[in-house]
């Protein structure tokens, strides 16, 4: 008899764990309270990213002046006394083993997203240079369809499309910052220009989501083609806000890449980002295709009875108590509800586990504001708080042998500074799912 597997958390880490368990042939249930940080992503999937402008994290090789390849950046994350979750994954093989695990996890993600026509572009060996809506640059390794097509590497000119009426999009402001950014990073000569579209994308002032929904309609492809008619020639990149449809983004952007020009979306931030919505929809479709039973409700408390876990519903939620022999917790941090900042301090609600900051100091029970430091770019213990895990991704101090942690719930890294959020979610999610599957295969009680 096969044991029962349960995953708590419906973001990238939870979906990855559930899909890996399903692939190993185990029936899986997944408890998802609602969209979390995954659904808010701006479009880059950073496995080993350190962006310019993030102090203390090198993105450039000081000797050669070129951007560090992923190997170098991963090496930095693994160096010294780092408590980054990646240090738990490389085993005896060191960096090479981690790189192999990351490549494998990205391939898995590609296979889940492919039926939804959502691509994951890039690889660990090359850097992509992605502009954001504010005009700053992100140096990263992987990106989702949309922003992935806006890679500035190797382009001869950047054309920023004015799209009046699209909320949160300021082409001139973006251009001003981008010019400074290119100069400051020494990437030039790369001219940046603002261009007017041949026809408007929005009807009056509209949110990016409503423009995208309109472009999903029957006239959408024609509107886009006409709007971009004659803009950009070979080697040039045309930047749009995130409006190129809630679906079929990759296909449409490729259709627009005519005459050697490329058309891409900038990395956007909530509330103007659609990349996270596209990713979450594609993951939900993959869960349905893998026949993972999804319960849309919030978990309240985890109890342990011998080697068996019981998950109760949270207050106001109704679902039968879920029993599991293998439990993967991927509840996220403050957005997902995996960590809660209450009057009695920061705490972990499901099991009341101890929480630590990247230096290994306990932060649970300390009021949230005490863990915030002054200064932009300084390490913030609050944003990197999480549970500590052992080499097997089991939370230390957690009861039983059938419990694994995945995603941002694991502490020891600061996604706001290191920008490895979705990469960590993916790689730890896949690893946790495989370990849970191996535990069940080994004949868990």
């Amino acid at each position: 008899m096969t044991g029962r597997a349960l995953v708590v958390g419906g973001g990238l880490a939870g979906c990855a764990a559930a899909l890996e368990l399903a692939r190993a042939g185990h029936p899986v249930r997944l408890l998802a309270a609602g969209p979390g940080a995954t659904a808010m992503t701006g479009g880059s999937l950073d496995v080993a990213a350190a962006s310019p402008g993030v102090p203390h994290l090198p993105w450039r090789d000081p000797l050669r002046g070129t951007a560090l390849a992923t190997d170098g950046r991963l090496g930095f994350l693994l160096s010294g006394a780092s408590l980054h979750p990646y240090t738990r994954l490389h085993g005896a093989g060191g960096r090479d083993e981690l790189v192999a695990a990351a490549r494998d996890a990205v391939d898995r993600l590609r296979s889940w997203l492919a039926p939804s026509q959502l691509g994951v572009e890039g690889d660990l060996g090359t850097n992509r240079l992605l502009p954001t809506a504010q005009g700053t640059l992100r140096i990263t390794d992987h990106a989702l369809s949309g922003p992935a097509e806006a890679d500035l590497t190797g382009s001869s000119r950047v054309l920023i499309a004015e799209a009046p009426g699209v909320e949160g999009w300021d082409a001139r402001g973006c251009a001003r910052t981008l010019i400074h950014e290119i100069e400051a990073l020494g990437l030039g000569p790369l001219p940046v220009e603002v261009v007017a579209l041949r026809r408007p994308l929005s009807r009056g002032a509209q949110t990016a989501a409503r423009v995208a929904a309109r472009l999903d309609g029957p006239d959408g492809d024609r509107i886009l083609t006409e709007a971009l008619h004659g803009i950009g020639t070979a080697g040039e990149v045309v930047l749009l806000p995130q409006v190129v449809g809630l679906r079929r983004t990759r296909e449409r952007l490729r259709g627009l890449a005519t005459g050697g020009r490329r058309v891409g979306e900038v990395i956007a931030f909530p509330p103007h980002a659609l990349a996270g919505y596209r990713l979450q929809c594609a993951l939900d479709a993959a869960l349905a295709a893998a026949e993972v039973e999804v319960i849309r409700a919030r978990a309240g408390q985890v109890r342990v009875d011998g080697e068996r876990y019981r998950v109760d519903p949270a207050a106001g939620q109704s679902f039968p108590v879920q029993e599991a022999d293998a439990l993967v917790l991927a509840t996220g941090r403050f957005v997902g509800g995996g960590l809660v900042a209450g009057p009695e301090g920061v705490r972990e609600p499901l099991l009341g586990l101890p929480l630590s900051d990247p230096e290994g100091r306990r932060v649970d029970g300390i009021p949230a504001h005490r863990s915030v430091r002054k200064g932009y770019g300084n390490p913030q213990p609050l944003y990197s708080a999480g549970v500590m895990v052992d080499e097997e991704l089991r939370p230390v101090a957690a009861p039983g042998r059938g419990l694994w942690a995945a995603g941002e719930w694991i502490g020891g890294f600061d996604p706001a500074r290191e920008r490895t959020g979705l990469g960590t979610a993916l790689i730890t999610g896949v690893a946790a799912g495989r370990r849970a599957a191996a535990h069940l295969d080994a004949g868990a009680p």
Partner: protein
Amino acid sequence: MRGYRGIFHEFTHTGSWRALALQLRTGIVHVARQLAGRRDDGDPLARFFDNYGPDGVRPASPVDRMLRLDAQACLVCGLCSVACAAAGGEPRLDPRDAVVAASRLHIEWRRLGLEGTAGSACAGCAACDAACPQGIPIHEVQEALAAGPGKG
């Protein structure tokens, strides 16, 4: 969230001298007023209408207060707006804007002049509710806006 647990608890948790001073002053003024004796100005609700009625301000109903507390959890992530657009909704007021209005405009948020239009254009499909990471009952906020001031 636990309720207010006293000034010393709050001071030890926030370390704010300013908040402590303000609260001590409030306490002293309160005791002084009690000692001086209260004036009886009649029905407080009638007094409220006398003072604010001509400006069109109505007292917040319990539903208003509850929705406002819920709405204050908003992260302004815009996922409600995306879900609404994906469901084909075209309400006159975007769900995200409705929640921000409810959380920021105090008792004034029902006076946006949307009576009869916000509701008629919002199909009430509640796609926004399912998309909210904070579990805010967004379409109830939309309905309250549609109902107009002083109702519900």
